């Protein structure tokens, strides 16, 4: 029996949206401290390639996941050193990180292209697996990273809004000088959040290569890093809203292919534009209020002064 469109769409949205969610969470945390990282795409690629390489070499996907998180965290620390200590321009450094990610991921991945892995194991609770219309789909048959995605988002929200550390982080993002005067160390807080954000981005990349595609190819992330950057704004720098955003965008990606598989006449290229147009429309619609939701000193010159 064929899956109803909604179920297929939901399944596809979760498949595509998991890595988007992790990437968005990582970037949200970092941006909350006032730093914008345009090199997120590079971090995703590093995560995907390192994760795949380690898994192919060792046969253990968990090693791959851990390695991906560690590698991306380190790359983000390098980015952090340039931006926090050397006070370099955040945008240029971010783009540099992107190129760095292109190159490093290609080098690491090239030795393992074509390797076959079984990837992250999937698991579905037995009682759900017996339901007829669920059984034939991929719904609720997820790997650990997907199961943990929403809990991690909730955890991120809690840390950001319900802990002292989160409060300090947000204060730094709003006004580092005031935070400093109040006894917090902006640089220390930024140095703490950067590897955390990097690790989340690494997990996003690992999910892509270890759970979705089960392979590696150059530039595999296909711009997801940039969509995630837009999703951060879309979700008003709030990890809970990021869940909705990731689902929406994962869904838009899946919609195109589900519609093709049903034989609709819409050009796949136009369908492909939907995620980007959708983001822009949303940003447009809530333009004013979203700008006010941004951490006031994000990127320092990120928003200019107008």
């Amino acid at each position: 029996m064929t899956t109803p469109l909604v179920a297929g769409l939901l399944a596809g949205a979760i498949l595509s949206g998991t890595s988007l969610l992790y990437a968005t969470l990582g970037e949200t945390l970092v941006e909350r401290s006032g730093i914008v990282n345009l090199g997120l795409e590079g971090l995703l690629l590093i995560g995907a390639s390192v994760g795949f390489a380690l898994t192919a070499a060792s046969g253990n996907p968990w090693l791959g996941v851990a390695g991906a998180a560690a590698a991306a965290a380190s790359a983000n620390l390098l980015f952090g050193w340039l931006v926090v200590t050397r006070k370099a321009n955040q945008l240029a450094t971010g783009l540099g990180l992107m190129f760095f990610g292109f190159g490093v991921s290609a080098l690491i991945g090239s030795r393992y292209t074509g390797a076959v892995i079984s990837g992250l194991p999937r698991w579905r609770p037995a009682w759900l697996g017996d339901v007829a219309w669920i059984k034939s789909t991929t719904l609720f048959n997820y790997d650990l990273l997907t199961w943990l995605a929403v809990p991690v988002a909730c955890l991120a929200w809690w840390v950001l809004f319900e802990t002292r550390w989160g409060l300090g982080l947000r204060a730094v993002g709003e006004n580092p000088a005031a935070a400093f005067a109040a006894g917090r160390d902006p640089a220390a807080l930024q140095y703490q959040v950067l590897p955390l954000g990097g690790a989340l981005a690494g997990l996003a990349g690992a999910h892509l290569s270890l759970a979705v595609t089960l392979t590696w190819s150059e530039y595999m992330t296909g711009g997801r890093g940039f969509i995630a950057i837009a999703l951060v704004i879309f979700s008003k720098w709030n990890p809970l809203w990021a869940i909705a955003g990731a689902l929406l965008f994962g869904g838009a990606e899946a919609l195109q292919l589900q519609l093709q598989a049903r034989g609709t006449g819409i050009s796949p290229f136009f369908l492909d534009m939907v995620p980007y147009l959708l983001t822009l429309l949303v940003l447009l619609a809530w333009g004013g209020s979203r700008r006010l939701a941004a951490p006031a000193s994000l990127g320092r010159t990120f928003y200019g002064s107008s």
Partner: protein
Amino acid sequence: MRLKIAALSGAFVLAGVLAGLLAAPVAFGQTPGLIIGAVYVGSVNDYGYNRSFHDALAQVARDLPGVKVIEAENVPESAAAESVLENMIQQGAKLVVPTSFGYADASRRVARRHRDVAFEFAGDGDPERNFGVFFGSTQRAMYAMGVAAGKMTKTNKLGFVLGVPIGYSLGNVNGFELGAKSVNPKAKTVAVVTGGWSDKAKEAAAANALLDQGCDVVSMHVDSPATIIQAVEARGGMSIGFQSIEARALAPKGWITGLGFNWAPFFTQIAKDVMAGKFSGQAIYRGLGDMVVIAPFGPSVPPDVQTAVKKAGDEVAGGFNPFTGPLNDNEGRPQLPPGGTVGLDQMGRMNWYVDGVIGTLR
């Protein structure tokens, strides 16, 4: 300040002199009998298309003494390829193999500038003095694959993932559906396009979408079948492979059969011709039994299906052309009149889906 200028200028001059000195001896290394230059659109480790060429050329280098192969991977299908091709010739290549359709313009331009270098272009078009075109015709062989799919399917819905909807790919889908219909008139093929030869995330999503739609047998025309086959296997579907017969290792339960390329004999002959100075550009399209081979069957394929597939394969190898009219496309328009055919050299121009394929081309 002046010291800084002087030091810098001195450094540049020194670097230039050094480079120049070193450049000279490099030109006179020992020259092997033949240098073959190959240009790939992806990575040679792709378990698929690019690997098939890499393996074949490596075989030639092993079999013929004095042959060396230089390669460039991940070269974009654009005018940028021209400088890569020129570079290979500057490094001494006398036989150049551009392996992807998108290198057509660049290759022809370079070939016209270097009439002393032989080119074998994987694609179509008119051959020239030093420019041969070739391809392994899989479209008719896909008929035999369709026979396998038509017999194995329980839902009568087959899935096909295309990377780029060029004529060759469309021909593959059509051949597949024609074969399936010939043994199972209710069989339909759902065709989904990812938009790129190697977009892994889309391929995974496409495979899942096809399975969601009820397809239980999936085939494909993308650079590497690995992602799709693995996605299908994970959900208990059956797959028919393409590009490389090694892909069957990826689907221990669901593998039915597949097609693969074997370019080695062809290239061996061409290399011998070039070394003997007898090369002349021709259009060479060979199919099943020569450049194209059928993969071994999977464990779940019953003997009667195997027989049917082998029979269809023999018919194709013997000259049977499934693309014989009358044939309508899937919008009801007649595309081939009774008795009309699509020849091997016209496959690149195909731009319609045969009746029974679900999909749009716009």
